[in-house]
């Protein structure tokens, strides 16, 4: 220290250098502590910021989950089930064109119409994933020819358009001969696979809540008539193959 003093002037800013040297140790310690702070502690502050963001995120997610839970608890279970039954009746229970033919036969029978011909092309069932719907569904088409009284054709078409499952007529031509109307139609029904999603928590409250469009659809199809076909009815007419026991088929 004395050696250092010998290099310094006697006075600095009107004070003896020895007085200034008293501050050298505390200032040195402070600089070291500040350097430690800057080198090791400041990066921790950045980490803490990230941690706080994480905490914020978790707190928000918890809040949203609780809101969704409260909403789900407020739903009337019985009402939900009845809505589900109604809406499930609106689509085909399976992607089966023969089921669709059965449904058309049932509708026609109410108006004395009979399916005289139908054609189902294998592979016609189309997977559709459209931007507007943002989900995948299947269109099940069938071409049918139905014959019945001319007087009932309008009521029959009306019934087709107001039936459950919901059907859409893609093509239509009609010929009237005497009192009989022969109607050729391409009809489609729709099949939607069971809804599956692994991350139920990823759904937002808006995803869970019914919007006006959906409620309008529900109230609209509520007025439609359901033409359900049981599994037994689908299998009806499909006879089991029985192999012939004849040795010579010509005798």
């Amino acid at each position, binding site marked *: 220290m004395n050696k250092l003093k010998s290099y310094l002037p006697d006075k600095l800013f009107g004070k003896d250098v020895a007085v200034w040297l008293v501050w050298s140790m*505390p200032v040195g310690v402070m600089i070291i*502590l500040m350097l430690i702070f800057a080198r090791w502690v400041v990066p921790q502050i950045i980490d803490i910021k990230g941690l706080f963001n994480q905490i914020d995120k978790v707190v928000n997610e918890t809040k949203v989950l609780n809101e969704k839970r409260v909403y789900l608890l407020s739903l009337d279970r019985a009402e939900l089930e009845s809505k589900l039954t109604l809406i499930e009746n*609106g689509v085909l229970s399976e992607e089966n064109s023969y089921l669709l033919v059965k449904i058309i036969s049932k509708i026609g029978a109410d108006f004395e119409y009979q399916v005289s011909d139908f054609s189902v092309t294998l592979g016609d069932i189309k997977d559709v994933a459209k931007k507007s719907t943002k989900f995948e569904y299947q269109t099940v088409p069938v071409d049918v020819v139905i014959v019945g009284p001319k007087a009932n054709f309008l009521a029959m078409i009306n019934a087709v358009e107001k039936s459950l499952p919901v059907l859409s007529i893609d093509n239509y031509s009609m010929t009237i001969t005497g009192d009989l109307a022969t109607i050729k139609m391409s009809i489609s029904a729709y099949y939607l696979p069971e809804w599956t999603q692994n991350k*139920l928590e990823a759904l937002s409250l808006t995803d869970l809540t*019914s919007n006006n469009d*959906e409620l309008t659809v529900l109230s609209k199809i509520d007025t439609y008539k359901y033409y359900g076909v049981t599994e037994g009815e689908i299998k009806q007419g499909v006879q089991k193959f029985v192999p012939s026991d004849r040795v010579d088929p010509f005798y």
Partner: protein
Amino acid sequence: MSLNLLPSQAKFQVEIIKAKSLSRKVLTIFLIIWVILVSVILVLKRDWWLKKEKIKYEVALSGYLQLSSEIITSQSIKFRAKLLGKVLRERFEYAQAFNMVENIFDSKIEIRDFELKEKKYFVMSVIASSDDAMKQVETRVAEVNMGTEPEVKNIVVKSAVYTKNTAQWLVTMEVYLK
């Protein structure tokens, strides 16, 4: 006015002592602040808070997932309703079109064929069993083309064939809806 009568060496010593005491105080305060800051940061750095919030989240999640059947039901309803809404919006309502066609002509005029070519465009054949009925067809077509039917844009008569044996007119026309 105070008078300092200490010798200059003593004054110098007093100044040194004061400086030492002040520097010690400053260093102590600095150290206390530094230690407090570091301690706070170290406490915050530990993720106990995050862990606590994660536990709350897990509790909320398990409560939410207990309602998974409600979630699946509501989603099934939602997706089916979306699909049906789209179908109902986009499909052509034939019954409505037929009603319209039936209203264009009188009951004396009988529809023979009807084929939808495109949405809002169809070809139909009607039978007029008398000259009066035929005149009515002509009059109605002219009226419709003048805009009397709000739903129909225009009708183009493509052919009119008279069959002597049955004394009937078979009129084929193209109908364009609005």
